[in-house]
């Protein structure tokens, strides 16, 4: 059960994340690795926390029949991620203030928030499928950035691009280790904020049918 105190804390943390991302915008965006793997995830996390707090106040958010099974929300997340994986969008955020502003709105509210509102409603198999795919696709991204014959972002150096590729690979390997490890040693992992499928409940109570 989330206490009011915890809720306040989460809300504050979300605000803090947004604030830090904005305040250290230049520093974070100077390097594609921190741009893609620190700033964007932090923004998404902020959205995740906001949605968590909001859904406590308005439980209907989390039970919206339109989002039964979490499919609609996860699809929004999917397109949000696809958009921000386009090198054009990343370049755009660096050169156009409008696109930069859009980033601060869409990553929290079209990636992080819908993920929080949909993830636990999704069938465990769908969640497992998405997680496994995330691993494969992070591997593919790693290769794409390391093997690209051209500079994909005009705003970043070629060597930064290759470093980003390597970073994607490391993220994929760490996520594989963390997710895999939990399946072995912490099967009851299903607490709030936990991305792991809620497996112990045998699915039946934790997700929509």
């Amino acid at each position: 059960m989330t206490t009011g105190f915890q809720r306040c804390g989460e809300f504050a943390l979300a605000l803090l994340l947004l604030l830090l991302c904005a305040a250290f915008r230049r520093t974070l965006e100077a390097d594609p690795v921190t741009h893609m793997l620190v700033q964007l995830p932090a923004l998404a996390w902020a959205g995740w926390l906001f949605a968590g707090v909001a859904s406590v106040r308005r439980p209907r958010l989390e039970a919206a029949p339109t989002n039964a099974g979490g499919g609609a929300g996860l699809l929004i997340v999917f397109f949000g991620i696809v958009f921000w994986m386009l090198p054009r969008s990343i370049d755009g955020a660096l050169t156009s203030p409008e696109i930069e502003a859009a980033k601060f709105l869409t990553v929290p509210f079209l990636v992080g928030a819908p993920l929080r509102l949909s993830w636990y409603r999704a069938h465990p198999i769908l969640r497992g499928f998405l997680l496994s795919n995330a691993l494969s696709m992070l591997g593919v991204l790693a290769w794409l950035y390391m093997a690209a014959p051209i500079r994909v972002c005009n705003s970043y150096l070629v060597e930064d691009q290759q470093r980003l590729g390597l970073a994607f690979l490391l993220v994929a390997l760490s996520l594989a280790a963390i997710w895999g490890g939990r399946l072995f040693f912490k099967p009851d992992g299903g607490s709030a904020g936990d991305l792991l499928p809620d497996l112990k409940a045998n699915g039946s109570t934790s997700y929509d049918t």
Partner: protein
Amino acid sequence: MSMTSTAAPSPQTGAVKVAMLISGAVFVLMMLVGVLMRAAQGDLLDLDPALFYQLMTAHGAGMVGTAGLSGAAIMWYFLGRHVALTRWVFHIFLALFLLGVVLILGAIFLGGFGAGWTFLFPLPAISGGAWDLGAAAAFLLGLVSIGVAFLLFYLEAGRAMISAYGGLGNALGWPLAFGGSTENAPPPTIIAAATVTVFNTLGIVVGAAVLVVSLINLYLPEFAVDALLAKNMIFFFGHVFINASIYMAVIAVYEVVPEYTGRPWKSSRIFALAWASTLLFVMAVYPHHLLQDLVMPGWMLIMGQVISYLSGIPLLAVTAFSLIVYLKGSDIRWDLAAGLLVLGVAGWSVGSVPAIMDGMISVNKVMHNTQWVPGHFHIYLLLGEVAMAFGFMAWLVRGDVAQSRFTTLDRLGIWVYIAGAGGFTLMFLISGALSVPRRWAVHMEDWLTQDRIATGFAVLAVLGALIFVLRFVGGLGRSSKA
């Protein structure tokens, strides 16, 4: 005796029977393709090399895929005895599998794709004019579809086992293996299924990555792929996948043989340890496919040789040894199912001998990519996995146990199959020892005699297989009336 014939019926007998019917039919069909290839090599038949290599690709993809399908059906069936599985997952699995088959067949026979089932980078993209990129893409997409099918299958299997046993570690039998705790020890089926679920999920994740990379590279060749890395990923995926099919099929032995011997197959500590080491070995042994890639790090090649040998120990000292003990200590009532299941374990064990030999670097220098290689893997597929699958099929439709008989036709089928498959694989080994390279559409004059003898044996093996499949179809008719 409690765990045997009185077990609750598996929830999805119908779907499993459909999967086994498809498997049996494809096995026979692909064996016929094999006969054609051997006949063409023996110059008994005039096949255009382009067509030969298309048939070779179809034979490889078809056999590996169907070995996987039949293994998965066996695992699903018996896993359903122990944990609650979600029914629709198996239907989606079958549908995606068939979609993949359609794409692959289209790529091969409409698009002319013939790069071998291993789609070794960059051959799919560089065909020398034999097929276009669309065909290569359709083939790779077909494999992706089959990969997704298996991923969903294992996710559901994993979910069900984790929720029933509280964590994969427990389902793998690790408390039993490493702590000696017999409390709540999972049955052999669970330990085997959990092990396969772990390593094949990893294999599929790696396979998906290399497939997507290959697909992108087809259309954007400037995104270069490192040929050595691609080879490592492909052989990791391929090796793990084909091993998974055997390790899934052996579940039929654990579950069915006790019905005949009257002695339950129990999870002992050594059993759990064997599977724990198998988990490691299956994933670490794949460099034995790369022993002639001299740029590979030396330690990986040594690892390939050492683990290739070590892999034989759990098989011989645990599964085969236990089966032998059970056979010796009991008055088994033979029928087609029992005969084929025992044959499966025997064939698998026998096949491990030439496999381990080929896993030695110095042997590999003169045996790699000769017909020795198809020789050894045909032994433990044709006489191993496929025999187990046929055995499971026979068991599925054997009707009332008391009335189950070992008919003359059954005995004939088994002996024809053993003689055919045995002679056929022996010819491969002999040809390999005579330095005949594998995967050649046209053979030299000196090699024709062996090819022709092998073709004869292959026909016998197909006849045996045909008997098993027809018996199964007949049994389906009977059981639906009952």
